[in-house]
């Protein structure tokens, strides 16, 4: 099986010659929201549409790095008492059903920590999950976790932000393998050249330090924002906007958004 970065590179290559914008789509779904069944059905539907990367968030009662829409959905999902073990099994089934896509499991540290981080990596690997994103696990504290990931062939996915100091950014970028999750808080409207330039500078700085694919998330909700990423990043992450569309009009509205963004 190809590594995550190999997978991404291959698909990027293929997209150059397709009708779609040449960016992979990484779509975000909260496990257990609004119910476990509905969330699984939504994931399945996205995968059927050819979404390359599915980011599944295991909900947590205190998602400190998320905005209001995702926070509310997480709280709702927690009420459905999601179980980590079952979640991993169900994601494994999806991965097996859609071998053309990759599933990344995202979540805050505590539920993983309670499950056991080593056990998590093992079980995720066994289920074919390609990567793990843990926004509140600093790289400095992740020695064992990274060894486990290496041992079991799961990619730990790190985040950088515009606030990350240059040296640290370089260091994190250098250590990135499967992909690097580039958060941009500044947002890109497509209108403001200054902001667009800032994003370009940010991404090119990162690029200097790594060959890993770059995934960018900054509240993408219009095609022009995606277009601005072409040539500078590999993956467009659609999170809150997708959830809002889904909340407003279900799966169809979600898919319509993705289509309007040019990434399905």
């Amino acid at each position: 099986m190809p590594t995550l970065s190999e997978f991404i590179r291959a698909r990027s290559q293929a997209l150059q010659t397709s009708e779609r914008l040449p960016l992979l789509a990484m779509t975000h779904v909260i496990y257990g929201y609004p119910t476990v069944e509905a969330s699984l059905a939504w994931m399945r539907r996205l995968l059927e549409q050819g979404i390359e990367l599915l980011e599944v968030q295991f909900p947590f009662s205190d998602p400190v790095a998320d905005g209001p829409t995702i926070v509310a959905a997480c709280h709702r999902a927690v009420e459905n008492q999601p179980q980590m073990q079952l979640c991993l099994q169900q994601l494994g089934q999806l991965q097996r059903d859609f071998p053309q896509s990759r599933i990344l499991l995202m979540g805050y540290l505590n539920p993983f920590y309670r499950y056991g981080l080593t056990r998590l990596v093992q079980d995720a690997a066994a289920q074919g999950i390609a990567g793990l994103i843990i926004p509140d696990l600093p790289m400095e504290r992740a020695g064992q976790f990274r060894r486990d990931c290496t041992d079991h062939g799961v990619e730990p996915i790190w985040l950088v932000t515009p606030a990350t100091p240059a040296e640290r950014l370089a260091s994190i970028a250098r250590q990135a393998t499967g992909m690097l999750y580039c958060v941009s808080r500044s947002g890109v409207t497509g209108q403001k050249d200054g902001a667009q330039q800032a994003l370009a500078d940010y991404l090119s700085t990162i690029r200097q330090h790594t060959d890993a694919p770059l995934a960018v998330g900054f509240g993408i909700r219009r095609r022009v924002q995606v277009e601005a990423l072409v040539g500078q990043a590999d993956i467009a992450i659609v999170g809150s906007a997708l959830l809002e569309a889904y909340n407003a009009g279900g799966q169809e509205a979600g898919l319509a958004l993705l289509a309007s963004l040019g990434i399905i």
Partner: protein
Amino acid sequence: MMSDNGYYGQYGGSYIPEILYTSQQQVQQAFDEARNDPAFIQALEQQWQQYSGRPTPLTFCANLTEHFGGAQIYLKREDLNHSGAHKMNNVIGQGLLVKRMGKKRVIAETGAGQHGIATALVAARLGLECTIYMGAKDVARQYPNVFWMRQLGATVIPVTTGSQTLRDALDEALRDWSGSYADSHYLIGTSCGCAPFPEMVSFFQSVIGREVRQQSQAQFGALPDRLYACVGGGSNACGLFLPFMDEAQVEKVGVEAGGKGMALGEHSIRLSHDLGQPGIAQGFASIFLQDNQGQLQETHSIAAGLDYVGVSPIIAHLAEQGQLRMTYASDQDVVDACTLLLRKEGIIPALESSHALAAAFREAGTLSPQQRIVINLSGRGDKDIFNVARAVQDAEFPQFLRSYLREYPDNLQLASDAGQGRAV
């Protein structure tokens, strides 16, 4: 107590979103410098004294001592701080640090509202912008504090997510900080959160224990035999205990909120009886009340300042090491202890502090009259009238409120009846 690089045994650390890394480092560095800068310490001590009225006294309680017939009972009077609680020690310290860092705005979370008021007070005094996050349920329950925060010029943002209480306010404050770190400082109110907050807050609160050492020597020529403090986040307990850590013979007793019962959701007992489990959330590793999936749980206490889901990593570590003994007091014990202090000594304790009283009262009679205990009276209780009146089922209080409401300016009544929020 100095941490080992932000850790206390297995607890502590800094588990925060990457975007906060720089700010966290900045706070760490500013604090490391400030604590070693005599000018900063001097400014701190000056504000403690001239603004908050420190030192707070150590009060001997002759009637209580006689009542229990055991140990001599002393109270450390943090209730006499400006704002009425120990919270002031910390907000003064962090406020001065904010000025030092050149930031213009502070963010804080608050549960009961005590830390919110203390922050709003200091922000006003230091000319800082101030935004307070408070669970929408707490806003509704503790509105008098909200009123004062707003009068002080602070923006109070009711948090409507999750359980709408302290925990959610904390999450929301962290989110604000993630977007505003450039000019804002997150002024955490207790010895929790990512490093260096537990250490920093404890550093600022340790003035409590240092004074108790001096006052004990001056007033009875010895150190106390036992210390009691309630444990919410753990800051007043750290403040009292830490300066005594080298003295194993001084027993330290931390008191948690026993609430209404032992079922999950009815109490806020994280350490005693092993009701909490290790976890990593809200920026730090400690013991949290959580389910088997690691979801943090709702808590309860009659004292709004004690119903926190986690606990200071410092307290968690010391308890694990057996360097302090954890116990708890039920809502009912707490009301009784509060009443007893009122009647016997003419001091109105906060319900939070009444937890420490309750535990101490339980044990005082078993000690000898040669022994001395110091209970940290972390705050005053007049703020608790709405709770206490309900707890003792006072019949005239609602009557008073109704007649007050009848006289309230009419147009405003209508506006608020319609739930239209603030007029000002």
